């Protein structure tokens, strides 16, 4: 009887020590949840004629995972908004570098030089050198616009491939979660055990998933989770479904799961996570920055050309309508090849006479006209507005991201407090279990001595 109790004690302490060993070994594993062996006294016997019940020892009832589901949900929510704003901020700050304002090599400087070069031609209409300079500064302006536009388009298309890559990552994770669901359910059903480490694995996957898109997770009584993205199930029990991507005519991506569309509407970023952020960024690039840049370029092209067509080139006897720029938007703007080859054909004059610079002056003075945005803004101001908007949006995204970082750190610290391994604690437990083990062993020795006394040394008289 006593021997059995001691044996149970030894076994239980050993098992608890095992759990401690598992904790210590995983101390620096970020996805690991601390486990705890729950010791419980085994059921006592009632012995008639004796006071109270007779204890039968101890056993490990369960090994529990120290985790707070509420914190998990909070972390996942904040994680998906962090990833959303992070993606947005990274993209916007990249766009900031495209315009390289407020530095000396920005679009503003190029534009100013362009206007100034026409002033030079107006002051010196007979000079060939100033015409060449004006054409060069026109090319510099065209280059700067084309370059910015190209970088924007590059970012736009690289986002598309990034998004499809993330979608396949989501699909992969969904499959893995479904597989883990099956394993967890079968372990729990077959042996009634807690598959703690499998759950940890699944939680890490769900965390990763929530940094890609906003998900909501519910767990059923068999331990399997159901994962939904904007109310459409991605994983339920051990079935994983695939997210599919289609592109609309306007160039937006539409996600759907088994034919059901996910969150379409004004707030495209509401999908959350990195994917939501990238979708939002992509739409902003297309509808705001590329559009504004194109509008700027096409306005420069049309107004400069209209003024240029009315003028005469140097030595023109008859009026010839020539364009200064070719192209229609920021992607195609160039100084017309004709002028590059014959700089003297720059139409500085309105009369055909060499001393008349009024044509060039007319072009230089286009900067004074407020013809953009329905006749309220000048070309320079339109550009400044674009830069200002970029600054404000980028700063806002950065603030959101920084706020989310703080929140996230706070929640992570809380989670760590609940589920993290403290080495000091584990060492203390180790000493505790070791002592208990030693004591059980000593108990066994004592019982052994008692039996020895009873069997071998008692009743020697009869021998």
């Amino acid at each position, binding site marked *: 009887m006593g021997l059995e109790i001691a044996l149970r004690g030894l076994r239980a302490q050993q098992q608890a020590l095992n759990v401690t060993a598992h904790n210590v070994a995983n101390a620096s594993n970020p996805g690991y949840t601390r486990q705890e062996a729950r010791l419980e006294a085994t059921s006592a016997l009632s012995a008639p004629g004796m006071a109270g019940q007779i204890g039968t020892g101890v056993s490990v009832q369960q090994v529990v995972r120290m985790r707070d589901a509420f914190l998990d949900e909070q972390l996942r929510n904040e994680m998906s908004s962090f990833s959303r704003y992070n993606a947005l901020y990274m993209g916007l700050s990249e766009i900031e570098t495209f315009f390289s304002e407020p530095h000396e090599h920005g679009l503003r400087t190029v534009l100013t030089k362009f206007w100034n070069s026409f*002033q030079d031609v107006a002051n010196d209409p007979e000079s060939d050198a100033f015409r060449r300079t004006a054409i060069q500064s026109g090319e510099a302006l065209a280059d700067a616009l084309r370059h910015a536009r190209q970088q924007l388009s590059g970012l736009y298309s690289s986002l598309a491939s990034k998004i499809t890559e993330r979608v396949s990552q989501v699909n992969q994770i969904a499959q893995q979660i479904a597989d883990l669901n099956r394993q967890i359910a079968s372990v729990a059903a077959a042996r009634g055990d807690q598959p703690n480490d499998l759950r940890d694995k699944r939680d890490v996957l769900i965390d990763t998933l929530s940094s890609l898109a906003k998900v909501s997770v519910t767990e059923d009584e068999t331990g399997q989770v159901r994962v939904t993205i904007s109310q459409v199930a991605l994983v339920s029990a051990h079935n994983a479904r695939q997210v599919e991507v289609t592109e609309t005519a306007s160039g937006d991506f539409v996600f759907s799961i088994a034919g059901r569309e996910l969150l379409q509407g004004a707030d495209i970023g509401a999908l959350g996570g990195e994917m939501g952020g990238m979708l939002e960024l992509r739409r902003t690039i297309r509808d705001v920055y590329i559009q504004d840049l194109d509008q700027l370029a096409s306005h420069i092209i049309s107004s400069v050309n209209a003024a240029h067509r009315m003028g005469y080139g140097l030595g023109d006897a008859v009026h010839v309508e020539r364009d200064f720029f070719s192209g229609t938007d920021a992607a195609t703007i160039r100084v017309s090849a004709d002028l590059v080859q014959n700089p003297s054909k720059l139409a500085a004059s309105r009369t055909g*006479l*060499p001393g008349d610079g009024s044509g060039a002056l007319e072009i230089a003075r286009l900067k004074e006209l407020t013809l953009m945005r329905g006749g309220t803004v000048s070309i320079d101001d339109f550009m400044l507005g674009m830069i200002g908007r970029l600054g404000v949006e980028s700063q806002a995204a950065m603030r959101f991201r920084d706020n989310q970082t703080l929140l996230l750190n706070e929640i992570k610290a809380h989670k*760590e*407090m609940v589920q993290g*391994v403290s080495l000091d604690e584990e060492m203390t437990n180790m000493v505790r279990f070791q002592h208990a083990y030693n004591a059980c062993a000593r108990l066994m020795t004592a019982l052994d001595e008692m039996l020895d006394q009873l069997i071998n040394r008692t009743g020697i008289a009869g021998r």
Partner: protein
Amino acid sequence: MRVTTNLMVNNLLHDLGQASRRLEQGERKIASLRRINKPSDDPGGAVAALRLKNTIAEAERYISNIDSAETWLRDTESCLSNLTMLLNSAMQNATRAASGVLPQSSMEAIAQDLDQLVREAVSLANQTHQQRSLFGGHSTDKPPAEITAEADGFVRSVTLSQDTGEITRHIGPNTLMSVNYTAESVFGTQGQDLISGIISLRDAVTNQDYDSVKQIRDDLERHHARVISLTTEVGAKVNRLYAGKERLEIARVESMELLSRLEDLDLAGATVELYAAENAYRVALAMGARVIMPTLMDYLR
């Protein structure tokens, strides 16, 4: 509160990260000497700075246009004052000739002198400014006055350019100034111009037609008054340019001051901040090293 090993390590890493980020930001500010390095550092400030840069660039542009207008007008002014002197000597000659007491030889000498004045007037009319005819309107490549007939060593007739093209300079926001004077506005309408006046004076002197001499002298007097008033006008224009330039210079300097206040770094403040950040980083490192070192294991047998 349960403090776990990872929690301590994470907190330490987070704190170290924050401290080193502040250090990096301070370093970057000081290295660039700018408060604003990208629009999101201060969107309002960045746009204001760009606007100021535009204002400065515009002011510089207008100042350079004003300089160009000024050199043109200065050349015009010196031409006009030479023309005034020329008219003075023509009128003196007329006065001497009109007295009627001069011998034939003196009258011939005066006629010679007047012919020289005609040629001088033609060369004044053809004055250039940086190889451009001052009085030729838009035909700056052609001399506006041409001697069309010469006989017996005398100039017989001169034609003046009819080009009335205006040459303007952009001297301020929405402000244009016309800087050129056409040949006819300076010398008079073709036919009644002062050059043909001097030519007919010379002929009258040669013919000893005293009445005509007196009459032409009065004509020249009127031309003289006109040229003087033109000179005054040019002077007034130059003064207007000066005033405009002064204004633009002030605006430029003020904008530069504003820009520097907006964009430039408060170096002393930034340096102090950098030192503070460096200190914070050092302290975080030292504290971190102490915090993560000891565990219970150090004290267990």
